[in-house]
């Protein structure tokens, strides 16, 4: 983007030129301004990432330096039931949660895009789950899914939908996965709805008027105008959400601790359990690195397609 105008005046570095004047030159001010951020990212992001890769290639335990064992950790992982289960969980959890967030997010955004009473308050209420600390709000869900006092089951039974005593949400594997997904959708839906709403607002009204004049009904307008024009926004939202759903930690850690029998473990929670609680930091790092391909793919798609025209 901006590499053309270097080496115009090497004399600018001449002695006697005051720092202030130096700072007026873009090619000095620019690097000076990005240095703090750059240092931080190199020392506390890039370097730890390198360490994670190194750990993953060694048999390190906490407090004991390991030896290089090549890809042994990655191979051993595949013979472990808990890892294979986690691998499957991660894809099930991410795909179901993202699909629900997209569908419900579009529905909610369409509703919010209408003329509403108390518009600001409704928006505020809808966004609330997203701003509250997830670890704390998940405690509330934990209580709502309690095996004895679950308000979800109480309501279900009172409405005649469930047979008493109702499912033991966090104690049975599929129910536990469902519970974790519900909480993730609850917490992520506001982000989808508000971002998609911004996309809806930017669709020119004339398009709708024109198609209405051509006799297109609401359904046709949704499929032929709204959805195609929302595509760029949807792409960004889905990509971002995929990373953060895939790498989720808080919800599973608070709600199920990965249980029952690993049926809700995700890479982040398993990596913590193996790497810190059992102390096998090498293997823990190898597990967390499974997040990397997804991250790399999303970054690649973003840079290649979504932000093509920006940089």
């Amino acid at each position, binding site marked *: 983007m901006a*590499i053309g105008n270097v080496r115009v005046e090497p004399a600018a570095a001449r002695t006697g030129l005051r720092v202030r004047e130096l700072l007026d030159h*873009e090619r000095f001010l620019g*690097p000076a301004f990005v240095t703090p951020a750059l240092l931080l990212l190199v020392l506390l992001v890039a370097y730890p990432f390198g360490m994670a890769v190194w750990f993953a290639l060694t048999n390190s335990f906490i407090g004991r330096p390991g030896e290089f064992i090549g890809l042994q950790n990655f191979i051993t992982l595949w013979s472990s039931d808990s890892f294979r289960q986690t691998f499957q969980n991660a894809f099930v959890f991410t795909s179901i949660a993202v699909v629900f967030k997209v569908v419900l997010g579009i529905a909610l955004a369409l509703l919010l895009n209408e003329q509403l009473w108390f518009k600001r308050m409704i928006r505020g209420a809808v966004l609330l789950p997203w701003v509250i600390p997830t670890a704390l709000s998940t405690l509330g869900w934990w209580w709502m899914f309690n095996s004895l006092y679950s308000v979800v089951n109480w309501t279900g039974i009172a409405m005649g939908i469930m047979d008493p005593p109702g499912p033991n949400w966090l104690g049975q594997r599929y129910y536990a996965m469902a519970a974790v997904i519900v909480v993730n959708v609850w917490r992520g839906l506001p982000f989808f709805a508000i971002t998609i709403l911004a996309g809806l607002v930017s669709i020119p009204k004339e398009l709708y008027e024109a198609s209405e004049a051509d006799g297109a009904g609401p359904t046709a307008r949704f499929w032929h105008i709204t959805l195609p024009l929302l595509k760029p926004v949807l792409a960004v939202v889905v990509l971002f959400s995929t990373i953060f759903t895939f790498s989720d*930690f*808080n919800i599973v850690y608070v709600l199920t601790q990965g249980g029952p029998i690993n049926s809700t473990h995700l890479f982040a929670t398993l990596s913590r359990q193996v790497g810190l609680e059992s102390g096998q930091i090498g293997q823990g790092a190898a597990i967390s690195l499974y997040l990397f391909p997804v991250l790399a793919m999303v970054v690649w798609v973003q840079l290649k397609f979504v932000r093509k025209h920006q940089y």
Partner: protein
Amino acid sequence: MAVKRQPLLRKVLLHAGLVPFLLFALFPFYHMTLTSLKTDSEMYDLAAVPLLIREGPTLQHYAYLLWETAFITWTKNSLMVTAIATSVSVVIGTIAAYALARLKFVGVGAFGTGIFVTYLVPTSLLFLPLAQVVHWLGLADSKWALVVTYPTFLVPFCTWLLMGYFRTVPKEVEECAMVDGATRLQALWRIVLPMAIPGLVCAVLFAFTLSWNEFIYALTFTSSSEEITASVGVTSELIRGDIYFWGALMAGAILGSVPIVILYVFFLDYYVSGLTAGAVK
């Protein structure tokens, strides 16, 4: 179009469609608040209706939380970590964003991409090696470990957010000031920053929220009761073995969210605009 002739009916139907979404979003908070105000005997009464308080509200769980646990210390820790990490990150992010949005220098494109990539790196990818780094820095089990590590996700975030805002400030305004004899730094301080105040408010709010809500680093890098943050304290210290203090847990979850709720109520519009500007985590 029959619907068009009945705008009121349509409007009522729209609101009815929103009810399930609002219930879904708000019910957990209602239930948490309610539970935190119930007496233990009513909370654990299987015959009672869980959606109401019958035996009168009680503040006993809040009293227990405030006087019998270290909740006040945890909150102070959260406030300190959040305040320092936010201020440092917004300053570093502001100058980096200005450089990316306005200045031409070698490597600006690569740096922009680097910021974008680190913005997407999830904290759960790096907590293991960072724990080691924290240990080397002599900050193991110290809240200062959080002050040092939180900027790793706050700075990319603030930079990204502010870059967008700086691009909306017309270049000409700044150039005019510089033609009139202001240096670039003066132009930045007197002209560009004041025009980008909404963006700065947004950056501060989001950085505050992100670091207040951060959990995995706090859980990993700190453990003693004097050093942990509110989220970690409430989720780990209120559970003793198999005994859960549900009332106090809910009270802690509510009180631990209060600072964010206060900011949220006053700055709702900033949250909405910041979210659509690319606030993601």
